[in-house]
Each structure stands twice: as C-alpha cells, then as structure tokens.
C-alpha cells in the first residue's frame, strides 16, 4: 500500500520560505501505557516535522492514539523514547509554548467565563491589570465579550468550547493543539466553528494540530492531513491539501476537495473501523483483512 514520506513535504500555502526551526519536531517518538507490568505500545516510532503557522489534521481509527499523541506533544505524557521539540527546544513536561484544548471544555464550573480564561494567567503569576487586558482581548477574539460574567452552566456547549479555546491561547502559545474540539457540537454549529477557527488562526498566527474524525473537516481546515494506523500509531500517509487560503465554505475548488478526500479515504481503508466509517459516512464495500501499515 502507498505511504508517502511525510517529512519531505511542506505545505505550500502559508510557508514563508525556510523558517529557522519547525514548530513541532518529533523524532522516533514512542509511547506506551504500562499494563500489568509490561508496556503496550500506543505510539510506535513517529517522525514528524510541522512547519510554523500551518494547520495539520490527524485522522485515524478510534483509539489509535491520536489524543495520546497530542498529550505527548503538550508534555502531559512523557515519550518513552525519542524526542519532542517545539520551536527547536525540547518539551519536558507541560509547556507554556503549547496550548491544549481538550475534547470537553473542562471549565471550572465555579468560575465565570472571564475567570476561566484568566486561570492560566493567574497560575503564571501575571498581575491583575495584565490579566484583565489579556482576558478582555481573548474573549473578544472568540466573540464572547458580552458573556464574560456568565458561568459555564449558563453558556451553550459551543460557547464553553470557545471559552476553552480562549483559555488555551492565554499564554500566547506558538502551538495550539485541538483534540476533537467540536465533536460534541451539532453539524451546523460545527461547520460555523470551523470557519471561525480559520479566522482565529489567521489572526493569531499559531501552528495548529487538530484531531478529527471528519475527513471533510480535515480537508477544509488543514494544510496537511496525517493518516495514522491503528495501535501502535504510525504514520500511514501524509496528504497535502492544495487549496488556496483564505478558505471559505462557499468558494472551495470542489474537484480538489473531492480528490484530496478520496486520497485520504484510500489511505484509511485498511485502518478503518466501524465507528470511523460511521463518523465519515464512508462504509467500505470490501473490508480488507490486511491492514495497510508500512
């Protein structure tokens, strides 16, 4: 089966020549969960470079270790072997250069939207005036300026996730990691959020890595789509999305979208599972017994 060598690829759209260091570099990254004394590999030897200010989507079957990979990049889980670098410097433990948005908003229910966004700033010891300025900016950025005094219980699911994104941006991370951030939202809201996410990205200029189950979403958002195999996760394919930016839902080159989606789908065929097929609406006619792992 086909597998492109991902490291040579650079996304064409936003790359501004040769940057000094990739935003993210993984070298031989393995991760294993200890089970009954021995280790079960979740991520098996991953090499990856992600250019600054690009958007990369991770797709792969359920439970293949995509969320684990994000946690390793964020420094929440230690790689068993190999190295993780952000902007040329190694990640050892939770890192302010990386902002992580979880699948659920994970807001502190007793804090207002304002105070939730201020949380990382308080932890980092910023003074009150600086916090207030920054939080006001961030809430404006995610369109929630009028909701700063509302508590999470008073906000809709989408608003809560916007607060979570604002919180992740509080310390101005170079890298924003999103773990299926809009999976709990209905389809229409989700589409709108994807457009908003692109606008946000255009303004903040961070590198974004997001996990998604939707091929359409991956194609719409990303410069590169990385297809991962089932556990232990390895790179199956690195698909470049050749669509000009800024992208708006109405004026995408439909043929290019279809072609890219088909390519991703082809790579996923071997790695697919039921949940994934349902999520993408793509039930393979001939399930292949052999998996396409290089």
């Amino acid at each position: 089966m086909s597998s492109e060598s991902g490291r040579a690829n650079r996304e064409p759209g936003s790359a501004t020549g040769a940057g000094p260091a990739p935003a993210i570099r993984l070298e031989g990254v393995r991760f294993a969960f200890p089970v009954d004394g021995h280790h079960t590999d979740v991520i098996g030897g991953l090499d990856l470079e992600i250019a600054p200010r690009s958007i990369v989507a991770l797709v792969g079957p359920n439970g293949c270790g995509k969320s684990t990979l994000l946690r390793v990049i964020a420094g929440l889980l230690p790689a068993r072997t190999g190295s993780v670098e952000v902007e040329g410097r190694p990640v050892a433990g939770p890192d302010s250069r990386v902002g992580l948005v979880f699948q659920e908003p994970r807001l502190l229910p007793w804090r207002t939207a304002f105070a939730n966004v201020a949380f990382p700033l308080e932890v980092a010891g910023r003074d009150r005036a600086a916090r207030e300025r920054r939080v006001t900016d961030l809430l404006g950025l995610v369109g929630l300026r009028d909701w700063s005094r509302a508590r999470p219980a008073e906000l809709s699911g989408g608003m809560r996730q916007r607060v979570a994104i604002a919180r992740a941006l509080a310390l101005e991370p170079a890298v924003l990691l999103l773990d299926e951030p809009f999976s709990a939202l209905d389809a229409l809201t989700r589409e709108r959020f994807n457009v908003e996410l692109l606008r946000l990205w255009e303004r903040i200029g961070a590198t974004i890595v997001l996990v998604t189950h939707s091929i359409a979403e991956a194609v719409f958002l990303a410069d590169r789509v990385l297809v991962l195999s089932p556990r232990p996760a390895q790179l199956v394919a690195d698909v470049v999305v050749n669509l000009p930016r800024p992208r708006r839902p109405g004026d995408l080159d439909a043929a290019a979208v279809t072609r890219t989606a088909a390519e991703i789908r082809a790579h996923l065929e071997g790695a697919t599972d039921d949940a994934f097929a349902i999520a993408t609406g793509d039930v393979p006619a001939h399930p292949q017994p052999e998996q396409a792992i290089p």
Partner: protein
Amino acid sequence: MITRDRVVPPLLALAAFLTGWQLLVIVGSYPTFILPGPIVVGQKFVAAWTDGTMAPHVVTTLAEIGLGFVAGAVAGMLTGYVLARSRLANRVASPYLVAAQAVPILALAPLMALWFGSGLFAHAVIVALIVFFPVAISTVVAVQGVDRRLLEMARSYRVTRGQRLRMVELPAALPGILGGLRIGVTLSVVGAIVAEWTGGETGLGVLINLARGSLFDIPLLFATLLTIALIGVALYSVVVLVERHYAIPAA
C-alpha cells in the same frame, strides 16, 4: 430567602407542638418535677437568662465548641486531604481511621477527664475528636471525587501543588467538605455536653446535672435543653449560610 411560605409552616408546627405539650400536661396532670408545661418552661427560660443563671454556662459551652470545632475541623480537613492524595498515607492510616471511628468517642470522655482534667481544654479535646472523623472522611471522599479531567487541565498550565489545592481542589471539594462540617457542627454540641457531664465547673452539661440533681429544678433542666437546641440550630444555620455562599449557581 425569607418568604412567607418558609416561615409560616414551621411556626404553625411549633404552635401545634406547644399546644399538644400543654394539653398533655393538663390532661395527664403531671407534676412540674416530671413534666413541666411549656408556659412554665418558657418563664424559667426567660428568668434564667435575665437573672444571669444561664449566661456563664452558655459562654463556657460555646468556648468549648468553638475551640474544639475549629481544631477538629482543621485537623480533619488536613488529614482528609493527605489521605486522599497520598496512596501511602491512605494505606497506612485508613484501617486505623476506620477502627478509631468505630470507638464511640463519647466513651473516651472519662479517659480525657483522667488525662486532661475537667477544664475547657479537656472538653474541647472531646469536641475536636468527635468533629474530626466526619470532616476527615467527607474530605477524603470530596477530594478523591474532584474531576480528574480538571486536574489534567490545570496540570497543562503547570500549576504548583499550592495552586492546584487553592484554585482547583479546594473549590471543587468544598460542597462535600461543607457536608462533613454540617454533621460535625451538630456533633460538636453533643460532644461538649457529654464532656461536661464527666466533670466541670460551668457549662450547659453541668447545668443539666445541677438542675436534675442538687437544684432539682426540672423547668430549669428543660430551659437548658431549649438553650442547647437553639445553639445547635444557630451553628447549623451558620454552616448552611456558608454553604449557600459558595454554592455554584445552576443553569
């Protein structure tokens, strides 16, 4: 919020209770030294407060409760937190905590009197012991119940231990801990009275003994019980008010 709906029904219940009590006394024609009527008790209650009989005893008992409750609650919360967060401490101490709780603390009152005498300190120790366990156990449960996903979120922003405690664990565990304090505050009144029975110069427990014994003033005994009940209700209300202050408004 004080509304008519919340004030009127309890008052009606009280009126019914007092009427029933008075009727029982009249119908049964009990002598005052067996069952004094509410009017006699009420008069005695007012008299004991105005002639200065009650006040010194109330002061002593409140001091014991105050000292003992604060000491027991603080020790309980600290122990509970350590047990919830340290697997080793939990393994070492949990069996003994359970065993210690199985001992009725009140049965230790004579021992405390032997060791520490019958003063304020000895009585406060009993109160502290009786408050300690419900607070410690509810703290363990509340801290262990803090949403792990919130803790992971906090860790991603590199919180220190102190920040994690102050900004995440404490507010998240507070409702559970306050539940333990609510139980503890009621028990603290019981602890103080029983401790005073084992000896002492002043205190509402001492006054009960006096009223029943040398003074043989049964209306005073009832007036003392009424005072104790009012203290219990007042302290409980304080905890409930604190709880309400920290409650998260629901959607």
